[in-house]
């Protein structure tokens, strides 16, 4: 009940903070704009099954959408469940800031191959300096309490319960254009967790990623990707770097408390020829080379709702735990794949052959852009 009251208080505080009357400017027929949140829509589902249950989603915004508030409530009287997410965003000229309150089960893994479910309750403060459309600085401060709900047997690490207070700063550039198959996607991120606010974790983390896209004519392109990271200190075991397969959920992102490991994550780390969650540690290096050929239509610029893209690839990666490599030789594989562009969604199937003769070839399914 206290949580509900807290959430409601925050909603009211945000709702009324911009409601002062607008000032009329002298001798002109217009007045200053003052943002004020108003309801865009509220979608409540309420049903009774021996106890009340509700699923409610709401969205509020100011006229110019320089203030936005969304909330989501899932409550079940019989199961004694109260889950919620509330996010408030304020947009300024170059800065956007936001605050999220949440308590929700989270799936760490792709929809079709869950690694674990955990309940997460926390607060995150986000800041984003949007220098250009392609370059920005992301800032994050987050307190979170997490507890495992279910763990897949394939997941190699024990899943801990705990509390964490983390921070992160990421400089990011993305000037890749799908139509031109040209550009770079890159970031460098520093972050970690501090032993305050009842947090049991203290670590620092460095992570970097660069993907270069090079077109050759209208149909062909090469993609070179290099990614690496390192964590120093005590971190939750399930939030280290994890590679293997096509990680539709960026578990390694969880290492810096980004909380990205959810349903809508596109693949971030790719080591085909190995099963999901195969390697887990506190340091990693991963590289990929992929050659792509647009099989239909004749040019990316002519893609309507359907396209077919073939690819040849070479993946290689190594992961370390406590400065020691998990493999004597880096894991590597090569193979071929095909991707279907279906109305904006990329659906891919890859067949990978590991260079390690003890590993068997594997099929991989992916949704969205793998790089």
């Amino acid at each position: 009940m206290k949580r509900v009251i807290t959430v409601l208080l925050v909603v009211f505080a945000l709702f009324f903070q911009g409601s002062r009357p607008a000032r009329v400017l002298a001798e002109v027929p217009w007045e200053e704009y003052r943002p004020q949140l108003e309801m865009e829509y509220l979608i409540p589902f309420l049903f009774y099954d021996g106890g009340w249950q509700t699923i409610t989603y709401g969205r509020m915004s100011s006229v110019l959408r320089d203030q936005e508030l969304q909330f989501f409530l899932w409550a079940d009287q019989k199961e004694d469940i109260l889950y919620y997410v509330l996010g408030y965003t304020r947009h300024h000229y170059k800065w956007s800031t936001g605050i999220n309150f949440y308590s929700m089960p989270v799936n760490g893994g792709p929809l079709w191959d869950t690694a674990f479910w955990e309940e997460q309750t926390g607060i995150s403060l986000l800041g984003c300096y949007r220098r250009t459309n392609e370059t920005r600085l992301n800032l994050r401060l987050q307190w979170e309490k997490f507890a495992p709900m279910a763990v897949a047997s394939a997941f190699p690490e024990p899943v801990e319960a705990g509390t964490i207070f983390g921070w992160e700063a990421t400089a990011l550039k993305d000037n890749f254009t799908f139509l031109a198959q040209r550009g770079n996607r890159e970031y460098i991120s520093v972050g970690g967790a501090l032993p305050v606010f009842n947090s049991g974790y203290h670590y620092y983390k460095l992570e970097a990623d660069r993907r270069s896209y090079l077109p050759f004519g209208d149909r062909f392109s090469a993609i070179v990707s290099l990614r690496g990271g390192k964590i120093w200190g005590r971190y939750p075991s399930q939030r280290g770097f994890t590679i293997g397969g096509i990680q539709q959920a960026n578990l390694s992102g969880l290492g810096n408390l980004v909380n990205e490991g959810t349903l809508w994550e596109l693949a971030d780390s790719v080591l085909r020829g190995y099963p999901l969650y195969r390697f887990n540690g506190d340091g990693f290096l991963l590289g990929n080379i992929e050659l792509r050929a647009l099989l239909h239509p004749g040019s990316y610029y002519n893609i309507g709702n359907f396209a077919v893209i073939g690819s040849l690839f070479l993946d290689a990666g190594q992961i370390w735990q406590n400065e020691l490599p998990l493999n004597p030789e880096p894991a590597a594989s090569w193979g071929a794949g095909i991707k279907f562009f279906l109305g904006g969604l990329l659906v891919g199937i890859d067949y990978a052959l590991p260079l390690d003769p003890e590993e068997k070839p594997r099929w991989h399914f992916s949704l969205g852009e793998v790089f």
Partner: protein
Amino acid sequence: MKNRLLAIGLVLLIAITGGLPHSRAAMEITNTGAEFRFGRVKSPPRPLKWQVLPARHFRIHFYQGMEDLALRCRTILTEEAYDRVYPDFQDFYTINPLPEIRVILFDSRRDFQNSQASGVPLTATPEGVAHFLVNRLAVIKQPTLRELRGVLIHEVTHIITLHSFRNNFLLNLAGQPPDWLVEGLAEYYMPEETRFPMREGALRDAVLQDKLSNMDSLRTVQTNLDYAQAWSLTDYVARQYGREKLPALLAEFFARGDKDAAYQAVLNISRRELWEDWKADLQSRYAAGRDAPRIRDEYEPCIAGHGQHMQARPAGERRIVFLSTHQSNYFDLYLWEEGKIRRLTDWTVSAYGVSPEGKEILFVSDVEGEHLLYRLALESGEISPFPLDLPNPVDVAWSPAGDRLAVTVNIKGDTDIYLVDLEGKVLARVAGGPYDEYSPAWAPDGRSLVYVAPYCGYDQLYLWDGENSRRLTADGNRHQDPVWGPDGLIYFTIGAEGYYRTATVDPATGEVKVVSPFQETLLYPYPLAGGEILSTVYQAGEYKIYRWRPGE
């Protein structure tokens, strides 16, 4: 397991309802940009100081430099848009009145795309968008008053026709109307002269090629042709069954969906019968030019490559400058030189003029938020700002002597034409009436200008002799894209009802002669010294550049 399924269902619900437009984290439903690793973010090119202009039924939001435009919009909204649309749909608001409509004006596409207020993704390219759930509409300032009127009335129509059904949209109760009626109503209530002419051009082309969409396809309206068909079908219903059937049909679609029963209840006709009757009506409407020879049977496009190509002009010997979407979603400047294509800009370019020697280009772009003129050196590719003393340039024409420019600007909501020197200083005003004057073209002697302005509801050509203007054309056609040819004649585009051809007018006698014999629509004629003409030809959704010779 039940909880897991519920959790998945909940997150799906958020996604479906638009709760996660950008974020990839279930726990975060803010929208700062920091929720995701990769992807582009909205970064406004300049700070905007917003003001609000109250008006009858509206509140108009605008920012610095748009004060005159806001006042102009107030007149359009209160005196034209509302009164044109609301009376037909007032029965929807007998119990719950239509709330005040909030209008958000943007100075340029770049400001619009980079603002959260637009409510659309960074790369979306509409001229305006109506958020009927919250009674807000966002509109980009248009180059001309006519286009601004069209966009405002189009978007206001969406709000008035749909707002009362917002709960049906949210909860998907009963049925949804097909897009052909939703967009068709918005196009139908636009005054005829404000409708984008090439929408009907696309419709005529589809009729001649027998490529009309069926009713299932028209449930979704996306392309230029879709909009034209939506307007045409709505217009057909209004003409055949009465305008009062339009709100009745809309309400019936919300009650029953896009099903035969809805058509039967309102029009007493089946869905298929309506489609067939409409198709037959179109065949008689677009008979003009049906039997004419096709340019594509006699000529090849002179510039190869994908994307749209248009507005070609020579720039020296064996070089052609043109606008194209060859490598982007937007029009950029390209140079064709002996078979090779070079991209000259990677900004949005809306208009340009070539210097007499063909070594420099002045172009209009909104890359910095507001529309500005830029100077491009063709050989080096260097681009620098042109210091124009006037705001909001729309198009530009370089005088034959290279010492003056005729610049169309939109300062007060409609376009006017000024002469400026190469330092950007104003020399004279050519035309400055309360309506649109635009598209200036120089006479070879550099003393006179021809330009376009409306007269009796149609675009006509006017001649400015250095002191006074006189009207050159008067018939019931659109007259546009004038260019003075080396033979002393003025070449231009003439047409109506989606069929546009190349014509000449003798500036001395006013005699008009159509010179293109083709079935296709030809736009932006540019007569070359040898007697050939560069034209932009529309066919099957594409604009391509052809080089052809009249009389062949």
